[in-house]
């Protein structure tokens, strides 16, 4: 590990943050609000720290695996610190813990908030809050590749830890191409959603900030009541469509929209993802129709929006699902664990792993009946390695263990069990809302300080696919390489 290389590339990541801080400061200036000084001061300070290594460290074409991993994880952690500074300087409900929680929630595209009154925030800060989603969603590291002129081996190494490992095979082994695909899809979806939302009556500021949050599958809204505040079914339909799209592997979206390829409909994972959403929506709709006073139109509207919002790990709300009957709540929690496809900005275990898990369970059952049979686990006509299946199952088990451990710690801190379990599942899956007081229209302000630190750590673990963050703390990768 060569520290100067780490300084150079994490410095570049900081500079990308500075660009968005400056845009937020300009917005603050336009709206003449109180966030200009905190935003501008943060931009200046972070810019100075970020630009300095560029003066000293020349560009390099060789980045080792360990350096790549350190750059990725350190960039996430530093971005979260940087993201907290404007909140901390602005004040209001933000103390150190709250600012850190909000920033981590933003960058990991979780969307949980500690704010009891979001609308009290100045526009500049609201824009910065949404920007953290957008930056986090695409992965700051992917952005960083933009400004590395030599997108060869170094690009790929940085990229590996960013995208869920299982999605790697569908991207061509070319970081430059992958970056281009991601950028086209990401920016294209954001612009398209913003335009549609404006056309359906949302103002430009809200349209852009909500698009940032949708495409990043984040969930930060500029309103206390989230999407429910607009009470506009047309806007909800637009957001539903873009939430679904944002939950699909971006490489597949690219092949559909740009290359006119219909491969997307042949993908087992995508088929499973869409069918599960459809099935859960229908079940929730029928249950709401049966057990609540809602009419069919409202029941359909709320069930579709809430299931898709949680199922894609976005976390927007058009209704208070914490008062719903038991079956929809269980479905919501299942989706908060599973979330959407790998290769998208979604969090959670991911449908890819769940599909492999179901298939592995199916195979195991067949092996009970035919112990001598050789039964491969296939995904889209491709047999998976036993090691891949083993790692997949290990990941799911480890994921659930972390959720259990963090929930237990929260309960030990006197958080009620519903808030603790659902809040942890939502944090680990980067979903946002859980059930109870941390539900779709609630917030995390009442969680004790230590609990907020636990939840933000869990968000980072989920975003960095658990092992990415854990390996960061292994002393071996920090071994300094002598030049």
């Amino acid at each position, binding site marked *: 590990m060569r*520290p*100067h290389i780490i*300084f150079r590339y994490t410095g570049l990541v900081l500079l990308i943050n500075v660009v968005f801080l400056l845009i937020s400061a300009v917005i603050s200036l336009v709206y003449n609000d109180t966030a200009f*000084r905190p935003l501008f*001061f*943060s931009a*200046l*300070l*972070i810019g*100075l*720290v970020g630009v*300095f*290594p560029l*003066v*000293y*460290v*020349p560009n390099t074409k060789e980045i080792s695996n360990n350096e790549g991993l350190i750059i990725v994880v350190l960039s996430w952690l530093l971005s979260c610190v940087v993201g907290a*500074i404007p909140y*901390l*300087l602005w*004040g209001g409900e933000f103390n150190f813990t709250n600012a850190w929680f909000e920033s981590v929630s933003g960058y990991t595209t979780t969307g949980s908030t500690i704010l009891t009154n979001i609308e009290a925030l100045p526009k500049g800060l609201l824009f910065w809050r949404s920007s953290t989603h957008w930056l986090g969603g695409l992965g700051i590291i992917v952005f960083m590749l933009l400004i590395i002129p030599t997108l060869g081996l170094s690009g790929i190494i940085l990229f590996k830890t960013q995208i869920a490992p299982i999605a790697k095979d569908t991207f061509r082994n070319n970081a430059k191409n992958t970056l281009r695909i991601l950028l086209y899809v990401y920016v294209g979806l954001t612009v398209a959603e913003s335009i549609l939302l404006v056309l359906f009556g949302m103002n430009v500021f809200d349209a852009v900030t909500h698009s940032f949050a949708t495409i990043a599958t984040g969930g930060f809204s500029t309103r206390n009541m989230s999407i429910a505040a607009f009470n506009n079914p047309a806007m909800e339909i637009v957001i539903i469509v873009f939430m679904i799209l944002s939950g699909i592997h971006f490489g597949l979206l690219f092949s559909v929209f740009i290359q006119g390829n219909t491969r997307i409909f042949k993908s087992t994972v995508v088929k499973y993802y869409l069918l599960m959403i459809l099935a859960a929506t229908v079940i929730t709709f029928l249950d709401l129709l049966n057990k609540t006073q809602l009419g069919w139109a409202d029941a359909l509207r709320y069930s579709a929006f809430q299931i898709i919002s949680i199922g894609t790990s976005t976390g927007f709300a058009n209704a208070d699902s914490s008062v719903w009957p038991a079956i929809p709540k269980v479905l919501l929690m299942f989706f908060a664990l599973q979330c959407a496809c790998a290769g998208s900005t979604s969090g959670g275990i991911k449908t890819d792993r769940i599909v492999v898990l179901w298939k592995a369970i199916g195979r195991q059952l067949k092996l009970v009946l035919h112990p001598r049979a050789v039964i491969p686990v296939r995904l889209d006509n491709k047999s998976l390695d036993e090691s891949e299946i083993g790692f997949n199952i290990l990941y799911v088990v480890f994921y659930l263990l972390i959720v259990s451990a963090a929930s237990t710690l929260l309960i030990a801190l006197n958080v009620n069990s519903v808030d603790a379990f659902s809040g942890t599942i939502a944090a680990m899956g980067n979903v946002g809302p859980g059930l109870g007081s941390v539900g779709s229209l609630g917030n995390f302000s009442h969680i004790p300080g230590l609990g907020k630190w636990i939840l933000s750590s869990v968000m980072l673990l989920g975003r960095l696919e658990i092992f990415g963050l854990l390996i960061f703390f292994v002393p071996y990768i920090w071994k300094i390489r002598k*030049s």
Partner: protein
Amino acid sequence: MRLRIKILSGFFILVLMLTIAGIWSITELSNLGSSVRQLLDENYKSINASKIMLEAVERQDSGILLLLLGKTDEGRKIILSGDSLFALGFEIASSNVTIENEQALIDNIKEKYENYSSYIKNPIIIDDQANRINWYFDIPHKYFNDIKKEINDLMSLNDRTMFNTATALQNKASRAVMPGIVSILAAILFSLIFTYLVNYYFIGPIIKITNSVREFVDRNVPYIVKIESHDEINELSRSVETLCQITGEADNKK
């Protein structure tokens, strides 16, 4: 990039960071100072004015009682001095309207004091002692209580606002140190990075050059030093390398 620019840029950034932190802290402290001044000006003045008005109407109430007891001169004197005092208090309060609803309270005080004043300046003195007491409780004392209530309301409004502003100030004071803390932490981080880079790109190569020259002189080991940066140290290394080659060739010729 040249060596001088590299070194100077480090110090320049450090100075810039500390300057920004300094300017921000000064601005915050100066804002805090003006907020304290504002707090005193806006609320404390009105509270003081309310106290003056209360003292004035209480004096006038005592004056009426003295009139009722037959001490006419003394009573009138006290009532008039109370009137002057009230005018002073009212003047301060009415020229310092800074809170929502404060003007309405001041208008009420004015109206009620005018009613009160019309009675106490020309009190109807009744001969019968018992009727005098009844008159006192029926008219002047009732007005006295009304106006006292309005003045107390004005005082409470300013009290509450002062408490809220003081709480906000306390919050502001703790926030005022934040830019300083953030800047200091950033400066420490920056200094560590600066130190590492200076060590890696300047001190390390100089030590390498020195050791390699020593090896060449002592044991005739060829001078081979790889310098990553493209600055004067790189040029120095190449010059030393050329010098070593020339010296080596001269030695071989001997």
